[in-house]
């Protein structure tokens, strides 16, 4: 097993280097602590004994566990700690968590794809078990007995011969000298032995989040630090034709102003063409920047109009101007009474709009190395990208990961950190780049707009016989290669190629959809449009066949083993929502159903809506999830609540549009997100399971929008095929 190797390779040496060497560098530069959180965490880790990359125990029993994944609201710092502490047999009251810096030693740190638990559960358990083994071995050596005579439980090792006990704090130093065991020497717990895994433990960051001391990227303060705000090219690929900065430089608080980042599109994660104003505080920088009159050159994207784009895509998709990507044929007799049903679904571009706009602080040390403090999903990507732009090696870029005030995929792109590094280098002083909400809405890596056309051949006697799909949306690969204009078969199209459905013939085609802006990953990615179109079309077919949508889902999911979980949650959610009694609801109220498998989890949603005139109210949303083994039941429920609200924002409100190549929206007045007075009652059901863990952060989102549209149809008889619904209703 290569996990044993992993633990060996990434052991103390690197951990200690990570924590202490860089702190020393940093203390040369500054007289008072910089980022309080990071320094405190590093000091804490240094004072104890490191048993491996993730586990550090101090004499006073404090256990400091390292979280190598970014915390953005999913509760990963607590979940990672729960997993390690469980196998470690640590007492939870002594457990602290610190955030790992960016370092290859941790393996993949890119916090995306709802992967933290499903990819790392076993590995993290081994790190805990390995440290527990070392504590036991240390005690065995001390008592001069065999390790089999020693038992670790709740922060103590007990000598089974005489009942003597030593605490983890007592043993820490001795244990740190023990050879790291091989994975095959470790016995992991059985699920029924778990103390923490599966429990809804309170978040370890709860206190700091409630008393205002939690530190986010926007909050970083460094002595001698300057603040920078930027005005970026409104149209992709456009550059500055004319700007006069003389007057700007004279404004109160302004230190410098300059243009930067002349790059042609696609820029991947580089800084786009912009004017930067550097000042002694954010407000001074922003005010001077807003007063500027910048003339931009046109680019080849200056004519782009997203409304016209959708019309073109729709025509192409409906007229089969597409290439086949996948097909499935099962042998069955062709029914005689086939009729055709078609529908085209469209979604606009979407912005991430995390509550915390992007921000990054950079400083260069005397030895030429660069240090970053930022709210990033992928610290190693920051190392690589910053290093490349400022002429360093990735190891010379130290990335301290703060808490992320939401991310949803936005903060996987390090463009804003590159800006900070470039400006800090130029200024020879620490600089924080502060993005405004306008910057965030207008310079996102957008979720692509999409058109999906479904065509079905259905039969009263044989049901859904043939299903053809034509998709038109821009692939994320266009970020690196502008010629990529067809979604990736193994990624963006994977869940729309539903070969496990109980259907005789299926084909998936894609229309050429070149990029006109930066396209990125948004929470659940292409599942958003795929699940929307599938979930709605399933409902349309059911109604055309005069079937109960639930019966239709059950029939299409069939008895295929790979569909059993999805079928189960679909039936569970319907039971919760009293689906079979839905006809007894008041006339203007109705239920809508949708289900979707993504990120290795299965989720079904029923929404209860009320439509009075043109007022649409979402009264209640029911959700059932099977995500296999659960680490923190409360955070799983919280993520489902979150996904419902996020999905409702998409269904009801979110829209980014382009005119003359530029984004038309700028802040929460025109890029609206759901507010508390629009939010429904929520009921979440989590299937108990000891199966492999599935993803949790993303898969709740996709089934929400189609469930709403289906409910509106059931209430009004009106079938909406484009979002957001606030184009038809007051919400």
């Amino acid at each position, binding site marked *: 097993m290569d996990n044993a190797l992993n633990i060996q390779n990434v052991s103390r040496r690197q951990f200690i280097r990570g924590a202490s060497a860089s702190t020393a560098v940093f203390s040369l530069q500054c007289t008072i602590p910089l980022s309080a959180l990071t320094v405190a965490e590093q000091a804490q880790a240094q004072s104890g004994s490191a048993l491996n990359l993730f586990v550090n125990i101090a004499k006073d029993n404090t256990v400091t566990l390292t979280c190598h994944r970014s*915390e953005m*609201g*999913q509760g990963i710092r607590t979940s990672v700690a729960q997993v390690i502490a469980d196998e470690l047999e640590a007492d939870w009251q002594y457990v602290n968590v610190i955030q790992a810096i960016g370092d290859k030693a941790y393996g993949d740190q890119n916090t995306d794809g709802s992967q933290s638990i499903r990819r790392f559960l076993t590995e993290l358990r081994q790190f805990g078990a390995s440290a527990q083994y070392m504590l036991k071995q240390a005690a065995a050596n001390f008592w001069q007995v065999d390790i089999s005579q020693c038992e670790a439980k709740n922060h103590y090792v007990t000598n089974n011969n005489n009942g003597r006990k030593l605490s983890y704090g007592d043993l820490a130093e001795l244990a740190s000298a023990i050879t790291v065991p091989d994975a095959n020497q470790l016995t992991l717990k059985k699920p029924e032995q778990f103390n923490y895994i599966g429990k809804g433990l*309170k*978040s370890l*960051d*709860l206190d*700091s*989040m*409630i*008393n*205002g*001391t*939690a*530190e*986010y990227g*926007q*909050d970083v*303060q460094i002595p001698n630090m300057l*603040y920078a705000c930027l005005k970026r090219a409104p149209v992709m690929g456009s550059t500055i034709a004319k700007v006069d900065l003389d007057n700007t430089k004279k404004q*109160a*608080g302004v230190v410098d102003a300059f243009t930067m980042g002349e790059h042609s599109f696609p820029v991947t994660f580089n800084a786009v063409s912009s004017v930067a104003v550097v000042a002694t*505080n*954010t*407000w*001074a920088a*922003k*005010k001077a920047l807003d007063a500027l009159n910048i003339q931009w050159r046109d680019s080849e994207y200056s004519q782009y109009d997203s409304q016209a784009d959708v019309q073109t895509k729709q025509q192409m998709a409906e007229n089969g101007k597409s290439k086949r990507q996948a097909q499935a044929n099962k042998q069955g007799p062709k029914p005689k009474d086939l009729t055709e049903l078609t529908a085209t679904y469209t979604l606009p571009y979407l912005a991430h709009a*995390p*509550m*915390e*706009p992007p921000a990054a602080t950079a400083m260069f040390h005397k030895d030429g190395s660069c240090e970053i403090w930022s709210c990033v999903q992928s610290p190693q990507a920051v190392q690589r990208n910053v290093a490349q732009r400022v002429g360093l090696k990735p190891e010379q870029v130290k990335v301290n990961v703060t*808490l*992320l*005030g*939401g*991310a*949803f995929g936005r903060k996987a792109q390090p463009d804003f950190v590159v800006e900070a590094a470039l400006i800090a280098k130029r200024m020879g002083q620490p600089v924080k780049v*502060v993005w*405004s*909400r306008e910057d965030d809405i207008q310079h996102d890596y957008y979720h692509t707009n999409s058109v999906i056309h479904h065509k079905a051949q259905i039969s009263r006697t044989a049901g859904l016989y043939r299903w053809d799909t034509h998709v038109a949306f821009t692939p994320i690969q266009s970020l690196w290669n502008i010629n990529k204009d067809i979604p990736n078969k193994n990624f963006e199209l994977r869940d729309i190629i539903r070969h496990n459905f109980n259907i005789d013939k299926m084909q998936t085609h894609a229309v050429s959809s070149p990029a006109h802006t930066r396209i990125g990953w948004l929470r659940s990615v292409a599942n958003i449009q795929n699940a929307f179109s599938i979930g709605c079309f399933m409902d349309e077919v059911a109604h055309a066949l005069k079937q109960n949508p639930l019966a239709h889902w059950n029939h299409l999911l069939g008895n295929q083993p790979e569909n059993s979980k999805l079928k189960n949650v679909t039936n569970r959610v319907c039971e919760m929502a009293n689906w079979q009694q839905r006809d007894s609801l008041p006339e203007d109220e109705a239920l809508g159903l949708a289900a979707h498998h993504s990120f290795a989890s299965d989720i079904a949603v029923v929404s209860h809506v009320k439509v009075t005139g043109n007022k649409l109210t979402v009264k209640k949303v029911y959700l059932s999830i099977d995500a296999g083994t659960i680490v923190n039941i*409360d955070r799983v429920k*919280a*993520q489902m*609540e*979150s*996904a*419902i*609200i*996020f999905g409702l924002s998409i269904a009801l409100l979110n829209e980014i549009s382009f005119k003359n190549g530029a984004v038309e929206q700028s*802040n*929460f*007045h025109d890029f609206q*997100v*759901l*507010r*508390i*007075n629009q*939010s429904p*009652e929520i009921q979440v059901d989590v299937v108990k399971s000891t199966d492999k863990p599935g993803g949790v952060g993303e898969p709740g989102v996709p089934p929400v929008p189609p469930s709403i549209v289906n409910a509106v149809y059931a209430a009004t008889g009106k079938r909406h095929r484009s979002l957001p619904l606030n184009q038809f209703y007051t919400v």
Partner: protein
Amino acid sequence: MKYTLSINNRVHQVEAEPDMPVLWVLRDLLNFTGTKFGCGKGLCGACTVLLNGQALRSCSLPISAVGDGKLATIEEVDRIAEYKKNAIAIKQAWQDNNVPQCGYCQPGQIMSAIALVSNNSRLDKQAIKNGMSGNICRCGTYARIEKAICSVAGVNCKEMESK
């Protein structure tokens, strides 16, 4: 311009342009970073502070408008006599319901909630929703915020739900 501000019952002197919003005075000049920047336009509530008992969006409040008003921020609102009782109760309810996800909007939510329960002797579920509608939570912690405030305001959420 020189200004003398009362923040959390302590006097702070700052030098700032008259139009500088209190948000940036707090964050950049005085290091009170618990008050968050979310939109800068009074649209999201992340920057909410209390001024003489009222919840205000500090991003839209110029320093010159504060005068001798008393400001309270998330860091110490539970130590100020007039807010103490409700602030402690609200923060405890936030703990009990494990409300925060990313946590970024929560200082603003908590400040709005403190003002809401302090300034309204009789609240119901709808009044709570209306009162909190200026605070966005992109993580979608609304159901728990509502539950937490209901528990402090003595509103029976469950009973209201069934109606």
